[in-house]
């Protein structure tokens, strides 16, 4: 620290390197760094990943599956044979939970991702063309918002959709129905965001170069609302999982023999007193699932929001830096 004025060749070389590459940190690196700084969010991500892995490989860790009935253990509490106990039909709860978690995550991810994608394209198109196109598309969107989703789900998955039900498993049907009703809010948000993007010079520049409208929407508008899309995907996944649980709970979503967390919870509500494990295990898994997503969402918002105080103050990190230097 005493001989600051002497030039260290290594330092000069390092500076030159810094001049060239490192000074400008890629936005993705900054976002990742900010996300990692939020410990809650990292925990959320870890829980979510653990649950996903559990739902895929958990099935191999037990000899039982969701269809095999164990006639010797009917309605038994957790034991060495059945880690989480069995249902009153004698099916291993652990196997059921693994299966249910997988279906729930699958529904959540597919609906979350697909609905945001639909919303992005629909919203950007609306914003780009404006005028009449915007008016008609907005009318369709409003009409869908007005439609009572609950009734449509009930009709599609039970009485009305017989033909569909024969060809499709009930979870796929539910995904489709949930998709139809989940993208509208996001689409409106994206429409307004893109409208402000449209005012930016790079969109004008593309127009003046004669780039066709389709290409401008796909190459300029959609990528630039990416951060919002990522946020909306996690929100959409949570929403879809909750919707699935709710629909299955009231008996219009996933149909037996397919299981999901909602189905498990719904079946067990009447016997909370007699078979408490049947109720609490899927409920806890569901809480872990949605809770981890909510924790992640918070961190993602911090990471994407440039005005968040995630950087910290000059004083604190200076002391950290000093400590690092001294330890060298």
């Amino acid at each position: 620290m005493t001989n600051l004025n002497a030039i260290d060749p290594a330092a000069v070389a390092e500076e030159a390197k810094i001049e060239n590459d490192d000074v400008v940190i890629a936005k993705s690196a900054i976002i990742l760094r900010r996300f990692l700084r939020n410990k809650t969010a990292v925990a959320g991500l870890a829980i979510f990943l653990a649950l996903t892995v559990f739902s895929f490989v958990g099935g191999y860790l037990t000899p039982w599956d969701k269809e095999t009935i164990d006639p010797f253990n009917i309605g038994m509490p957790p034991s060495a044979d059945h880690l989480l106990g069995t249902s009153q039909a004698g099916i291993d709860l652990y196997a059921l939970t693994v299966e249910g978690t997988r279906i729930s995550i699958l529904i959540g991810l597919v609906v979350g991702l697909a609905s945001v994608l639909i919303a992005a394209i629909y919203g950007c198109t609306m914003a780009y063309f404006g005028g009449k196109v915007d008016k008609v598309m907005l009318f369709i969107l409003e009409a869908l918002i007005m439609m009572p989703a609950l009734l449509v789900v009930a009709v599609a998955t039970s009485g009305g959709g017989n033909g569909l039900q024969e060809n499709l498993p009930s979870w796929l049907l539910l995904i489709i129905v949930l998709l139809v009703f989940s993208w509208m809010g996001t689409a409106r948000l994206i429409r307004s965001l893109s409208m402000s993007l449209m005012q930016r010079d790079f969109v004008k520049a593309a127009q003046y170069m004669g780039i066709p409208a389709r290409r401008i929407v796909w190459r300029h508008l959609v990528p630039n609302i990416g951060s919002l899309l990522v946020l909306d995907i996690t929100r959409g996944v949570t929403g879809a999982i909750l919707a699935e649980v709710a629909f299955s709970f009231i008996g219009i979503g996933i149909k037996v023999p397919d299981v999901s967390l909602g189905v498990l919870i719904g079946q067990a509500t009447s016997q909370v007193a007699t078979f408490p494990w049947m109720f609490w295990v899927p409920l806890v898994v569901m809480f872990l699932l949605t809770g981890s997503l909510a924790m992640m969402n918070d961190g993602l918002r911090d990471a994407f929001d440039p005005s968040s105080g995630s950087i910290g103050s000059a004083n604190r990190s200076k002391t950290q830096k000093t400590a690092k230097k001294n330890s060298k």
Partner: protein
Amino acid sequence: MSSETTASTERTADSVAERLHIAGLPAPGYAPADAVLSVRDLNVRFNSENGVVHAVRGVGFDLLPGKTLGIVGESGSGKSVTSLAIMGLLPPTAEITGSVRLNGKELLRLSDKAMCKYRGNDIAMVFQDPLSSLTPVYTVGHQIIEALTVHHPKMSKQATEARAVELLRMVGIPSPKDRLKAFPHEFSGGMRQRVMIAIAIANNPRVLIADEPTTALDVTIQAQVLEVLHTAQEETGAAVVMITHDLGVVAGMADDIMVMYAGKPVETGSVDDIYYNPRMPYTMGLLGAVPRVDISEKISLVPIEGIPPNLVHKPTGCSFAPRCPLVSDACLQGEPELWPVGGPRGGANGLPASGTHQAACIKTDSLGAEVDVHEIFHAPAVPVSRFDAVPRLERKTVLELKDVRKHFPLLKGALIKRRIGTVKAVDGLSFDIREGECFSIVGESGCGKTTTLLEIMEFHKDQDGEVTIGGLSNKAASDARTKNAMRKELQMVFQDPTGALDPRFTVYEVLAEPLENQGMDKPAIRKRIMELMKLVGLQPDHVNRFPNQFSGGQRQRIGIARALAVNPKLVVLDEPVSALDVSVQAGVINLLDKLRAELGLSYLMVAHDLSVVRHISNRVAVMYLGKIVEIGDVDSVFDNPRHPYTRALLSAIPVPDPQVERTRERIILQGDLPSPLDAPKGCNFATRCPVFAALPAAKQEKCLTLEPPLEPAASSQAAQAAPDQQFACFFPDGELDADMLVVHGAP
């Protein structure tokens, strides 16, 4: 640790005062006793994703009462942060060390609450953006009175109101009594800045800090506001710290100048010292980089290569060394301190009395007045276009506008819209641009320059008036093919280089987009992109970077490269350099000049900076309220302006030359652009015209009822002198109203 590092660099200067100062003790007689504000060794650090940014590094100055200190520097040089640190307005996350003394009282470590006693009372600030610094939901009067009552709670209501009226009158707001009840949105930008000044001087502050007070305003309004600042200073006797990037603005106002670079003062001294005898290469470069509006001889500008250093890393040598053409090994041996110019080294104390010429360069003494800055910085020769020799009328026309109009209806009413008027944004515009020529449109904001550009870029059949681009008329532009052909002839460079580039595209993608659209195949595109990168002076291996990895000037070069990709004949430049720093601006202007000569391009430029226009253009049109009021060869219009508006515009531009600034007479136009609703019937400009105001009533009648046509001078002698010049005024030789003329004698 921080104080240690700064101290160790300062250890070279071994004066008693300096050592006492490092120890944190005020040396006896260290600061002049009569200084109202003395700043010592101010250091500010921020945290960023890249590490701790040392934004201000050892700023120190003394401000005597009634004096003006100009702090000049590029963006990121730490000038605004310095002012905010003095005001105690930095966020708590910033680390501030050093000392700021107001009349001998330390301000720096005061709590926010204790600071409130000084802020707005002894020390006040005028901010850059007048549009956002007034609260929209309170009346102007309320906000002025608030400033008064906060510091004088015992003042009676009548007294505060009377004072508010007095203040508004002082800053030149007409009928101040009624305007007290007006809301900020009822004021124009210039008026709001006046109100801000009124609030700032409400309590007769000892120190007034003006942070780029005129940057957001038009030239004519800037002249008004600078005038108001001048009066405010005279009335209150306050010391003023004027922060600006514009060397012209401070030339006429400041007594002392401090040039900042990379968070450090690199040269301080009296105005004359800095402008006529700069001793630091950076200052010399800055002065050479500014185009002059008052000089017709064409010399290329001095470009300062490179970008300011990153303040995350401590500079090992002189912070300017990487960009300095005179750099030698000695420059890298530690950062130079401010030395008195021509005086003994190291002997004087670190901060002598204000006004002493000091420069932070080890070669100070060899940089006398006889050194040519153009040589030092290797300014390129003035490029000559092959078209320059061909008479204008024999060149091909690349763009022709005939009677182009754009009127917007003004509607009112919630359910049933009724038309209450028309905004004539562009009203009967005709001009043409020939090959190899740069044609500029100048005027205040709201005069219709940008609308004109948009009308040309739109190129639509249903437009009012005819636009012909390279022989293609908009009247025949029915299908996409014609339009595409036109897009090949005409490209645009935008004002804001950051906004004009998609942040998610690499440079390669940015440049490839127009080429792909023209149906070029991949290898050809790659070859063309490499050509383009070289053409605009960027390293070809930077094509895989994203725009945010470039500096502003480099981004603008990318924008220019994109415009040139399809080999257009005409490039439309919408304020191409107004978002750039002076030193970078010079490089881009030189590039534009070079490209015009080498590629035989024509430019249509819109700019509000008349110095830039004079430097780069061949012909110029002055617009006022949608009409061209004067058009012609750039030298004849600038040297011999005939229309009173042109004269006023030219006189309002600050020149970076203190002598000229002090003696020049200025035409200060009254008021703002008239609202389009009550546009005058006769001459548009009559409401603000200095000639009109001095005319006898009989002649005024003519201005009010008849619209002056755009035509060459009537007298044959004047017409012969400048055959290309046309203007729209009945009385071009009329006398100017004395009230609107301001001459500052030497202070």
